[in-house]
């Protein structure tokens, strides 16, 4: 809300500079977000937290200022001549739905001369961004800003009959608002109705029919206390947000309605020639008890880390307009002022003590107390491991938004109408939750390629979303990696190889090795232990193709890898032998190498070091070079042993795959 330094000064002599005042307000919880000079005045834009609705007014904030700069608070006198109400102007108020309007106060004012406001009044309003209209309307706005009590003026001549009903709307009732909008009302809306129908949407906006006009001579001035939730619901239902609804939905002071009406009436008498009739309208609950709250000074000190006495606390609270007494246990018995509807329990009072004492003055200590037993977090450990492995492999981590849209989903091969829609997206390209990570990775790769990157190696660890049962959403943790272009930084000493299927497959194998899990492949689909993944080759300029693997790691996160056991290391040298095998083209080379390794206990490792077809290889065949490492735990192998093991391998692959040694 906007506050004017000069206007605030009407209620409290501010002896400090505007800058100092801004600092002081911020220090006690009213953050000054902006300060703008306006002639001799300074306008503060203050962020008032939702529970401090008592400060959504000049007097409200002036009360705080008076407390914190130590100045007196002077409220304007309310003086006017009251004329006994003649019968023809007497208005009967029927509070039908008192649950939504606990109190309805007001004044009837006649003989008004509607005209421009005096300059001081127009200036006060305009300083804080409210347009001046005419004296009657301006006074209602002025009182709202002065006291935070929204007022509404009905043209008495336009009210049909002399009875006002405060009731829920009936089904099908309509109301045309001040702004011309016609509403079909809900039975949950509270309205102000005259003899024939609704004339105002209670606490939100008045109706156009009964609006004050230049020819208005008599008004009913309404100053009510409406239920916060009801006003909020109604305002939201019609997408309305007014100065009035803003205050009512944050809560107003029910004890202050009549005084606000009287202060407005006094100004109308003074500035618009009005005659104030009496007695005033005042229906509903007029007495409001203030609950007693017990504050235990020891508990407050424990919570704040302070060493204040009960008396210290009492002094601080009294400065904030609290009544403070003592009980026999030396506890403070507090009653909050009527405008502090946010203070209703001990902890609320503790906060006020802290605020008045000054957060600045609270010491800074580190918590003592008990340390809970340390707990492992498998997901945290998994994420760290995966991230370090992928960065060590040369991949850069990316973060992409959790959102996507139907067009991108379809482009990525999803069926239309699928996915999890966001009910109220703010950005159209973010209308759905992402079902997978890879489309966004492809976008990142493309953007970087366009910017001239010769190589893209990226990964993301993030949540994906799919529709579940009964409207629920299934979250899965995915790990996706993409490689396109060169697979290592360029160097003067040679060109790095290009990314391909085997490059990303190698990454998956390294990841699986880390978790001690087996990898199995079936076409583009693969499994790492129980986790399912998919490989995709996506066309991607300027690289030609991007190679992407995406793995659902949800199940891996909560299953810690099996305890890692050390395997004894042989102290005897190993011997390497190469097998150049000629195989039918369709023979699976990986299985051949595995068969070689399995052919003898002495074969510790068998890896493929060479693969080719063409020259020297019969048609329909390929040459596969398998390098085998032989070793024993208890001795140095002799040539004869190694040769025998090699012969076993040759026979095994000959039998299983029709392999022959290449001459």
């Amino acid at each position, binding site marked *: 809300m906007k506050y004017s330094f000069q206007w605030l000064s009407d209620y409290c002599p501010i002896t400090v500079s505007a800058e100092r005042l801004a600092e002081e307000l911020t*220090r006690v*919880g009213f*953050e000054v977000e902006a300060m703008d000079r306006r002639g001799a005045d300074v306008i503060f834009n203050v962020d008032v*937290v*939702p*529970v401090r609705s008592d400060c959504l007014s000049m007097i409200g904030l002036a009360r705080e200022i008076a407390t914190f700069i130590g100045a007196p608070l002077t409220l304007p006198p309310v003086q006017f001549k009251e004329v006994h109400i003649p019968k023809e102007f007497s208005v009967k108020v029927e509070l039908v739905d008192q649950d939504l309007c606990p109190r309805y106060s007001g004044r009837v004012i006649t003989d008004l001369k509607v005209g421009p406001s005096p300059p001081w009044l127009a200036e006060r309003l305009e300083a804080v961004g409210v347009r001046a209209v005419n004296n009657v309307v301006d006074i209602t706005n002025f009182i709202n800003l002065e006291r935070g009590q929204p007022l509404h003026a009905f043209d008495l001549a336009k009210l049909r009959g002399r009875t006002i009903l405060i009731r829920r709307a009936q089904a099908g009732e309509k109301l045309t608002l001040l702004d011309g909008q016609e509403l079909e009302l809900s039975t949950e809306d509270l309205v102000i109705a005259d003899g024939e129908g609704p004339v105002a949407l209670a606490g939100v906006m008045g109706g156009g029919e009964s609006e004050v006009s230049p020819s208005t001579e008599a008004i009913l001035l309404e100053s009510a206390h409406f239920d*916060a*939730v009801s006003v909020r619901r109604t305002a939201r239902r019609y997408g309305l947000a007014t100065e009035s609804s803003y205050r009512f939905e944050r809560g107003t002071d029910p004890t202050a309605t009549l005084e606000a009406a009287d202060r407005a009436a006094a100004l109308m008498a003074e500035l618009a020639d009005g005659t104030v009739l009496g007695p005033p309208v005042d229906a509903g609950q007029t007495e409001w008890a203030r609950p007693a709250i017990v504050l235990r000074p020891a508990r407050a000190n*424990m*919570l*704040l*880390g*302070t060493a204040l006495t009960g008396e210290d606390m009492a002094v601080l609270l009294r400065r904030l307009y609290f009544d403070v007494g003592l009980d026999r246990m030396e506890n403070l018995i507090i009653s909050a002022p009527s405008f502090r509807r946010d203070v209703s329990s001990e*902890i609320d009072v503790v*906060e006020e003590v*802290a*605020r008045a004492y000054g*957060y600045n003055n*609270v*010491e*800074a*200590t*580190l*918590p003592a*107390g*008990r*340390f*809970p037993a*340390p707990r492992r977090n498998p*997901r*945290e450990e998994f994420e760290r491991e995966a991230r370090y492995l992928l*960065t060590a492999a*040369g991949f*850069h*981590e*990316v*973060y992409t938004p959790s*959102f996507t849209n139907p067009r991108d989903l379809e482009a990525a091969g999803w069926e239309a109408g699928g996915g999890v*829609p*966001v*009910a109220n997206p*703010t950005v159209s390209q*973010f209308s759905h*939750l992402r079902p997978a990570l890879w489309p966004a990775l492809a976008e990142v790769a493309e*953007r*970087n390629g366009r910017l001239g*990157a010769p190589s*893209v*190696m990226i*990964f993301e660890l993030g949540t994906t979303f799919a529709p579940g049962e009964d*409207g629920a*959403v299934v*979250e899965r943790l995915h790990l996706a990696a993409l490689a396109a272009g060169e697979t*290592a*930084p*360029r*160097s*003067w000493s040679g060109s790095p190889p290009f990314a391909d299927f085997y490059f990303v497959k190698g990454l998956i194998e390294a990841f699986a090795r880390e978790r001690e899990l087996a990898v199995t492949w079936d076409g583009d689909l693969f499994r790492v232990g129980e986790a399912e993944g998919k490989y995709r080759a996506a066309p991607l300029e300027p690289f030609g193709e991007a190679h992407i693997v995406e793995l659902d790691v949800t199940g891996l996160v909560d299953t810690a890898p099996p305890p890692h056991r050390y395997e004894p290391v042989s102290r005897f*040298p190993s011997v390497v032998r190469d097998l150049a095998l000629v195989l039918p083209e369709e023979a699976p080379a990986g299985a051949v190498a595995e068969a070689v390794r399995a052919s003898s206990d002495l074969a510790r490792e068998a890896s493929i070091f060479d693969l080719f077809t063409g020259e020297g290889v019969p048609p329909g065949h390929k040459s596969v070079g398998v390098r085998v490492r032989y070793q024993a735990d208890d001795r*140095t192998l002799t040539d004869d042993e190694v040769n025998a093991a090699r012969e076993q391998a040759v026979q095994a692959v000959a039998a299983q795959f029709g392999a022959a040694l290449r001459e």
Partner: protein
Amino acid sequence: MTTEAQEVLQQAEALRAAADKAAAGVDDASGLQAWRVEFLGRKSALNALSKGLGSVPEADRPAAGKALNDLRAKLEATYQELERRLHAAAEAGPAPPRDVTLPGAPAAVGTLHPITQTYYEIAAFFTQLGFAVAHGPEVEDDFHNFSALNFPPEHPSRDTQDTLYLAGDWLLRTHTSPVQIRVMLEQEPPLRVIVPGRCARADAVDASHYPVFHQVEGLLVDEAVSLADLKGTLAAFAEYLFGAGTKIRFIPDYFPFTEPSADLSISCVMCGGEGCGPCGGTGWLEIAGAGMVHPNVFRNVGYDAEKWVGYAFGMGIERIAMLKYGIDDIRLFYENNFDFLKQF
């Protein structure tokens, strides 16, 4: 086989290994000559072994003899291979002299995203103070995201959250605070836990807003904890993350789930507190919201609100990364351009 014969075989094998090892270091003609003298010369160990064959019992002599012959053949082959390689190298001409200004072969090392790096720094501080890490879902319900956290139904405090809703009652969590509730429903105090995670808000996309962002939440529950402890924790945190001498400002704020509530600012990292553009001339930069856990939150999870007290805080990781690295546009985190990523 006799011990003597085994001795010969073992020595032959050791010799083979030693010769291979030495061969790897041969890079010029004199090295090659020295290698030949050592392994194939008259005074070589192989010759000595051959001469000693006489002491091997006759039955084993042929086998031992064959092993030595094999070894000799292998060493001859190695010598020829070395000679061929040296000859080829000589034809190719001498390598250019070493130029230390030439870049080394680049090591292909990836980078962690700055949000991850910043989170790991934050986590390092709090784990030293005994905080464990907890996670929770990104899709939440009203109970965990709002009501259990003491947001009254139909209250304007909910408006400050700019919630993105899904079908039914589901929503995207607007903060990581619902995980406080999940942790407390599962575990008994005392508690020290931090919660990292992705959150979402109905925000437009501009230099300082993005519909997703990351938070780290902290919760400490014990029998005696104070606002002073909270202030001290966050002051130490500010110095840990932003350097010694970083000052904090602790001012009242409002959050439904804490009371008293506070807003933590650090002295501006750009101007050191003098007042500049990024800090709006105030000299302070907000980095976290915090407060003492509201007794209603304890009641909502079935804790004894009289016995247990606690503090909680929450901070945006992007915000902290932006201040720490001087990043002026939040969108950079989600564009992932290499020129950006590779700086971290």
